[in-house]
């Protein structure tokens, strides 16, 4: 009986997870729809004539002087990176930690250049620039170990064995073509009275009010195509949560 109760509770637990997962997918679908509409609604501007406010540009990334950041796992210089740390959980990789960092750079098209501050941007970078897997006796290299220690991320389990972990690093490098949706405004980093070139007078970054800054290496059309998945998220999420609710009531109250 106790085993039956235990099994029932375990099943109920999974159905509750499924219910909330369904709700999350349902919400996520509308988030994707909103983002898709936002990207579609803003036409792509030529850099020489961008107006203040929410803008969309597409162009090549150019470093600003010698400003770079170093990838957390590869140690390679880049202008912006996003990282993910996955842990193995029941034969599946689950992302347990993610982060990003960047420095100010230019984006250039055939008409001119403009500064970009990628701080706080939501980025969509698909190609893994650097990937590494540890575990089963395989130790992380020194660079990754330093990163884990600095950020107080546990990588050793019982008996000092390295836990199975996967490190993925996505970078934006000079010469990459990127799509950017953000807020163009006066550059607050300019010191008054100093001579500055025109291309540093304006900077595109995350806005205060709408907090939008979206970076991607994929062209606009492909981003929109990718976001068309929102329909399956909405319908699938709704169906999953309804079925899980039905099963929760069945297992919870009837059986």
């Amino acid at each position, binding site marked *: 009986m106790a085993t039956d109760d235990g099994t029932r509770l375990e099943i109920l637990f999974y159905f509750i997870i499924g219910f909330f997962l369904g709700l999350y997918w*349902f919400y996520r679908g*509308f988030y994707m*729809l*909103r983002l898709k*509409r*936002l990207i*579609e*609604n*803003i*036409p*792509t*501007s*030529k850099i*020489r*004539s961008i*107006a203040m*406010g929410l803008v969309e540009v597409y162009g090549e990334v150019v470093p600003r002087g010698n400003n770079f950041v170093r990838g957390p796992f590869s140690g390679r210089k880049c202008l912006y990176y996003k990282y993910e740390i996955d842990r193995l959980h029941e034969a599946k990789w689950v992302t347990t930690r993610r982060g990003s960092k960047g420095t100010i750079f230019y984006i250039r098209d055939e*008409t001119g250049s403009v500064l970009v501050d990628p701080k706080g941007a939501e980025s969509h970078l698909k190609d893994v620039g650097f990937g590494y897997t540890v575990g089963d006796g395989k130790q992380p290299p020194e660079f990754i170990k330093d990163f884990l220690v600095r950020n107080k991320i546990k990588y050793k389990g019982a008996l000092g064995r390295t836990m199975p972990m996967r490190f993925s690093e996505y970078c934006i490098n000079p010469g990459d073509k990127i799509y950017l949706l953000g807020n163009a405004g006066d550059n607050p980093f300019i010191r008054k009275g100093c001579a500055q070139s025109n291309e540093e007078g304006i900077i595109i970054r995350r806005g205060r009010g709408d907090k939008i800054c979206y970076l991607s290496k994929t062209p606009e059309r492909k981003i929109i195509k990718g976001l068309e998945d929102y329909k399956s998220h*909405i319908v699938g999420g*709704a169906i999953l*949560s*309804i079925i899980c*609710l*039905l099963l929760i*009531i*069945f297992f919870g*109250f*009837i059986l």
Partner: protein
Amino acid sequence: MLGTVVFYALALVLVGLVTGFIIIYNGFIMLRNNIEKSWSNIDVLLKQRNDEITNLVEVVKGYMKHEREVLLKVTKARSFSQNAKTIPEKAEADELIRSALHDLFAVVENYPDLKANQNFIHLQKRITGLENEIADRRELFNDSVTTYNIRIDSIPDMLVARILRYKAKELFKAKESERKRHHTVFTLTQVF
């Protein structure tokens, strides 16, 4: 039990419909604001160009005393632009000014003293820069209007557009009939 699930399913459908309506409505507000903003950005440049044209004519007329027709074309185009009220009229005025300036700059090639004049060089550069910006912003404005016009005719946005009585907007593009009419007027002005 079944009642609870049905109620929940209906609640999800209702939340979905309301959220969808809000997303579509907010999208329309954004598109309409984009159109207004991009139009204001064009209008301000059109006014700046008109002001620079006045200065340009002042600089040029001292050198080009025998080029009356060309200068008249420029001043008439400028006057037409200042009196234009609707978007198609302003688009037509824009085309006339471009054509007039093109002719003027072509004729200036015959006047080396004028070409070397610093004021003229500055004004020509400024007007060329403004023309490029107007062309870019015109493209942006027309993109915004096209997106809006497609949206109000597509399902499901069409349903919301009908409720709100939104109508299609005009592109920054001269109407063919108006273009022919003004071309004829300008040609006759040159003849007489």
